C-alpha cells in the first residue's frame, strides 16, 4: 500500500464517519412538547401546543419526504425541578431531539442550560424572559414568539406616550415577572415616566384585592400587570370590582393572551391594550389555520404561543431536511442561517443570539357591541415593525454576539 492509497482510505473513513454522524439519530426525529398541561397556563399552551406541533409535522409532509417524526409531551407543573427531570429523561433515555414551547421562564431557563450541555435543540415559544437571548443565550436555543423586552417596548411605550407616565407594578414573583417588570420599567423611565411602587405576588394568586389596594393608594396612573394567565384575569376582574378604573387609574396588561380575554368576557376585558405576535383573524392564511386549529382543540382558538410552536417546528423540520441530520447544534445553526417563511408569521429571520424577529402588534380588546361572535375579540391598533420590535442585538449582553 503506497502513501497515496493510504490517504484515500483514511479520507474515505473520515468522510463516511462524518456522513454517519450527519444522519437522523435512531431514524426518528423526536419532538418533545414540554409545558403546563394542568394549571393556570394550560389553555394558552397545554394540549394546544401539542396540536400545533402535530399540524406542523403534517403540513411539512414529513412522511412524503421520508422523514419519520414522533411527538411526545409532558407536564412540567410550572416547577423548574420537574421540568429539568423530564428534560434529562427525554434527552438521556427517550432520545428526544428537540424540546419545544416551555412556558414559565423559570422552567425554560433550566431547560435552556440542560439543552446546551447536551448539545440538543430548544425552540422556545411559551416562555417570555428576554434573558433567553440575553445573558443566558445559547447556541442551542431559538426564542421564537415574543419576549419581555418586546412586550414592554410595545405596550409600555404606547401607554407612556399617551400620557400614562406614572406606574405601579403588580409582579408575579418569579423569573418571568421580574424580567417583565425590569424591561417595562426601563421603557417607562426612558420615555420620561416614573415608577411609584411595585408589589410581588406569588404565582397563581386567587385574591388580588390587597395588592390592588396598595396600587390604588400609590395614585399611579397606570397599574402594570407583570403577570400572566389566571393571575392576570383575576387581577383585571377584581380591579373592576374595586373601582380602580372608575377612580381614574388604568390597567396595563403586559402579557395578555386570547384565551385570557375569552375567559374574562368582553364586558370586563374591553379596552385593554397589549402587545402580541399573532392573532388568528389577521389574513386569509391565519384565518384558515386558526379555524383548522380550533376544530382540533375543543373550539379554543390559537394563542400566539400555539402559533409560535407551529412555525418553529415547521422551520426546524425544514432545517433537518436540508441538513439531513437532527444534530441539535447543527440544526439550530442551520435554522439561523436560513430565512424563515411560514403562513402565520410570514417572512422573518433568526439572529445570532437566537432571537426570531418578526412584526409585533398592538391590539385593543373590542367592545361587546363590536364583536361579531365568540373569538372575535381584537382590533389592531398599530404594527411594530420587526426592526423595532425586539431588543437591539448589541444590547442583550449575549456572548454569542461579537461586539
Amino acid at each position, binding site marked *: 500500500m503506497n502513501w497515496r492509497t493510504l490517504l484515500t482510505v483514511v479520507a474515505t473513513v473520515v468522510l463516511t464517519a462524518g456522513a454517519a454522524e450527519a444522519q437522523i439519530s435512531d431514524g426518528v426525529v423526536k419532538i418533545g412538547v414540554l409545558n403546563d398541561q394542568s394549571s393556570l397556563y*394550560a389553555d394558552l399552551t397545554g394540549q394546544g401546543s401539542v396540536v400545533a406541533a402535530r399540524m406542523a409535522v403534517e403540513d411539512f409532509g414529513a412522511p412524503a419526504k421520508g422523514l419519520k417524526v414522533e411527538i411526545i409531551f409532558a407536564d412540567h407543573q410550572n416547577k423548574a425541578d420537574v421540568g429539568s427531570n423530564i428534560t434529562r429523561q427525554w434527552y438521556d433515555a427517550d432520545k428526544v431531539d428537540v424540546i419545544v414551547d416551555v412556558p414559565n421562564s423559570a422552567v425554560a431557563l433550566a431547560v435552556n442550560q440542560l439543552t446546551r450541555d447536551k448539545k440538543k435543540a430548544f425552540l422556545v415559544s411559551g416562555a417570555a424572559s428576554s434573558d433567553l437571548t440575553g445573558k443566558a443565550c445559547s447556541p442551542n436555543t431559538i426564542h421564537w414568539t415574543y419576549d419581555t423586552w418586546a412586550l414592554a417596548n410595545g405596550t409600555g411605550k404606547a401607554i407612556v406616550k399617551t400620557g400614562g407616565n406614572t406606574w405601579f407594578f403588580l409582579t408575579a414573583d418569579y423569573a418571568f415577572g421580574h424580567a417583565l417588570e425590569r424591561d417595562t420599567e426601563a421603557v417607562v423611565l426612558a420615555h420620561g415616566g416614573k415608577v411609584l411602587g411595585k408589589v410581588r405576588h406569588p404565582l397563581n*394568586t386567587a385574591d388580588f384585592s390587597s*395588592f390592588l389596594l396598595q396600587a390604588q393608594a400609590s395614585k399611579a396612573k397606570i397599574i402594570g400587570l407583570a403577570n400572566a394567565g*389566571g393571575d392576570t384575569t383575576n387581577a383585571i376582574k377584581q380591579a373592576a*370590582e374595586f373601582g380602580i378604573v372608575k377612580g381614574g387609574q388604568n390597567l396595563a396588561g403586559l402579557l395578555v393572551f386570547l384565551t385570557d380575554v375569552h375567559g374574562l368576557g368582553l364586558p370586563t376585558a374591553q379596552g385593554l391594550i397589549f402587545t402580541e405576535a399573532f392573532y388568528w383573524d389577521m389574513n386569509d392564511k391565519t384565518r384558515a389555520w386558526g379555524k383548522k386549529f380550533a376544530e382540533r382543540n375543543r373550539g379554543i382558538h390559537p394563542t400566539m404561543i400555539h402559533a409560535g410552536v407551529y412555525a418553529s417546528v415547521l422551520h426546524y423540520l425544514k432545517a433537518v431536511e436540508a441538513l439531513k441530520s437532527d444534530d441539535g447544534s447543527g440544526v439550530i445553526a442551520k435554522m439561523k442561517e436560513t430565512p424563515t417563511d411560514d403562513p402565520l408569521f410570514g417572512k422573518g429571520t433568526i439572529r445570532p443570539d437566537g432571537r426570531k424577529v418578526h412584526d409585533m402588534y398592538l391590539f385593543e380588546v373590542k367592545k361587546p357591541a363590536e364583536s361579531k361572535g365568540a373569538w372575535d375579540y381584537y382590533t389592531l391598533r398599530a404594527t411594530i415593525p420587526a426592526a423595532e420590535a425586539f431588543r437591539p442585538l448589541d444590547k442583550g449582553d449575549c456572548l454569542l454576539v461579537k461586539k
Partner: protein
Amino acid sequence: MLGIAPQALFGQLLIGLINGSFYAILSLGLAVIFGLLNIINFTHGAQYMMGAFGAWFLLQYAGLGYWWALLVAPLLVGLIGVVLERVMLKRLYHLDHLYGLLLTFGLALIIQGLFRNQFGSSGLPYAMPAELRGGFNLGFMFLPTYRAWVVVCSLLVCLGTWYVIERTRLGSYLRAATENPTLVRAFGINVPRMITLTYGFGVALAALAGVLAAPIYQVNPLMGADLIIVVFAVVVIGGMGSIMGSIVTGFALGVIEGLTKVFYPEASNTVIFVIMALVLLVKPAGLFGRAH
C-alpha cells in the same frame, strides 16, 4: 407603623376579614364533617369548585340568576355529596382516617380533571348580580358592595351553624352520635341517616362558598385545588372538629394573611403554613381542639 399609613392598614385588615370569610365557611364544613364522620374530606375544594360551576350552569342552561343559585347550587351539590356518602364513604367509617383521606383526595383529582378537560384552565366569566355592584367609599378605602355582602353572608351562615350544633336539640343528637352512636340509636334515632345528611350539609357549605366566590374569582376547575390546602391548614390550626375554633381561626388567618401581603407579599402564600407548624409544635391538638 413601618411606613404604612394607619388608613391603609385599616383597609388591609378589612380585606383580610373578607378573605377570612371564605376560609371560615370552608373550614367550618370540614370541621362539621370531621367531627361527625371522622372523615378528612379532601373533596371539599372540588365541591367548592362545583358550587361555582353550579351557579354558572344554572345561569347558562336554566336561566336562573345569582340569588337562585345561592340556594339551588348548594342543594344540588349537597345532594351529590349525599350520594357519595351512601355509595362510598360509609364503607370507610370503621377504617383508619387515612383511607377516607385517600378516597376523597382521589375523587377530588378525578372531579377536577374531568372539569378541566371539559372547560379548560382559563375559567369562565360569571357576572356580579346588579344589586350588589358598586361600592361604598369608606374614606380609607373603597369597599365593593359585593365583598361586604360576602362577609355578612359568611358570618350569618357560620354563626347559624354553630348555634344549631351547639345550642339546639338536633345539635345535641348530632354531638351525642359522635360520642356514642350505639346508645343514640337505642333512643330510636336514625344515626346513619343523620350522618348522611350531615355530610350533605358540609358539602353544601363548600358549594355555597363556591357560589359566593363565582363573581369575584374566575369560575375555574382548579379554583379549589390550591384553596383546599390552605383551608386544611386553617382547620389544623383551629383544632380538628372544633366548630367555633374553625370559624374564629378562618377569620383570624384571613387577617394575618392580608397583613402579610402588605409587609412581605412574597410570603403571603406560606405564612399560614408557618403558623400551622408553630401551632403544631406548641399545641398539637390545635388552638381550640381538645386532646383525646
